[in-house]
């Protein structure tokens, strides 16, 4: 029985080695790169991002409506809160302002636990549906749908 187990272990190790030789990404897993290589990548990404940021920022930004001016008919919430504002315009305040955003926060916080009970594909589908819901109502608010 013990001999059989040894044979199984050796066979498993042999298969693993065979896979490493077959799949280059397995070899890559064990490869280490020096921190300097990461630093070069970080500098390139940082300079590219900063260049885009400076280009966008070269266009003047609106000052907004002066505080003394009369309140305009439509008040625009910041885009990232557009989804909540869209809900607030249609649902009771507690539901739109606390229960739905709070449930979304709990949904995200608990993801590692509920995701461990279902297949990875369904986690992705569930997360995509969640993200599309918020993206959809945010866009609906921004474009006044």
């Amino acid at each position, binding site marked *: 029985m013990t001999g059989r187990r040894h044979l199984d272990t050796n066979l498993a190790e042999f298969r693993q080695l065979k896979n490493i030789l077959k799949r280059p*990404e397995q070899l*890559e*897993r*064990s*490869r*280490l*790169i*020096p*921190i300097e*290589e*990461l630093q070069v*990548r*970080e500098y390139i*990404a*940082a300079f590219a*991002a*900063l260049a885009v*940021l*400076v280009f*966008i*920022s*070269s*266009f*003047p*930004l609106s*000052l*907004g*409506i*002066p*505080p003394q*001016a009369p*309140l*305009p008919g439509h*008040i*625009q*919430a*910041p*885009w*990232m*809160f557009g989804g909540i*504002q869209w809900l*607030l315009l249609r649902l009771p*305040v*507690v539901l739109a*302002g*606390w229960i739905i955003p709070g449930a979304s*926060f709990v949904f*995200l*916080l608990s*993801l*590692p*636990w509920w*995701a*461990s009970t279902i297949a*990875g594909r369904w*986690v*992705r589908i569930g*997360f995509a549906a969640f*993200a599309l819901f918020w993206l959809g109502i945010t866009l609906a608010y921004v474009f006044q749908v």
Partner: protein
Amino acid sequence: MAKSLRSIAFVQHIRPRSLPAHSLRFWATLCMGGLSFLAFLVTVVTGMFLLFHYVPGEQAYNSVADIVSLAPYGSIIRSLHYWAAQGMVLAILLHMARVVWHQAYRPPREMNWIIGVFLFLLTLILDFSGYLLRGDRQGAAAQEVARGLLHGLPWGSSLTALFFGASDLGHGSSLTLYVWHVFILPGTLLVLQLWHFWRVRRDGGVRPL
């Protein structure tokens, strides 16, 4: 200087001499975590410049107008502050989507996922407080909505006073929000970010699918 930095265990932990190649592939990270941190740094640096001229309270709108028209490079610094903050939110959203796609929330990374969700929440609050501090009509209206929401909660008036200051103090309310925006929220965000980075190294990088 570099040697003395390397002797600090924390720095050595988050910046080890070598890293696994698979965790640094572009498609494994999309650089979004790093870019959100870069955006945070840009908001901190530009925010420091804005502090020299910004006046919270009733003068907020006029001081922003002065920053744009009178302060040297004020317009571009204000724009950088604004766009870096928007970019930070976008980068965090994409970073979260990437983490879910790679199933990088699985053990032993659950704790880091939770820290990340709190970082996202704090970033939203920080962004919102910045929106209110512009002192314009839209910001005032948004503040009314936020005050109304907080009032609906148990101990609502205390919570409103905690974040916005006592309403009967007038411009004092902006000062409370200003303290949250300049000190408390970015400070908490920085501590959580360092914890997040520390855990990234401790839990190991992303494995290819």
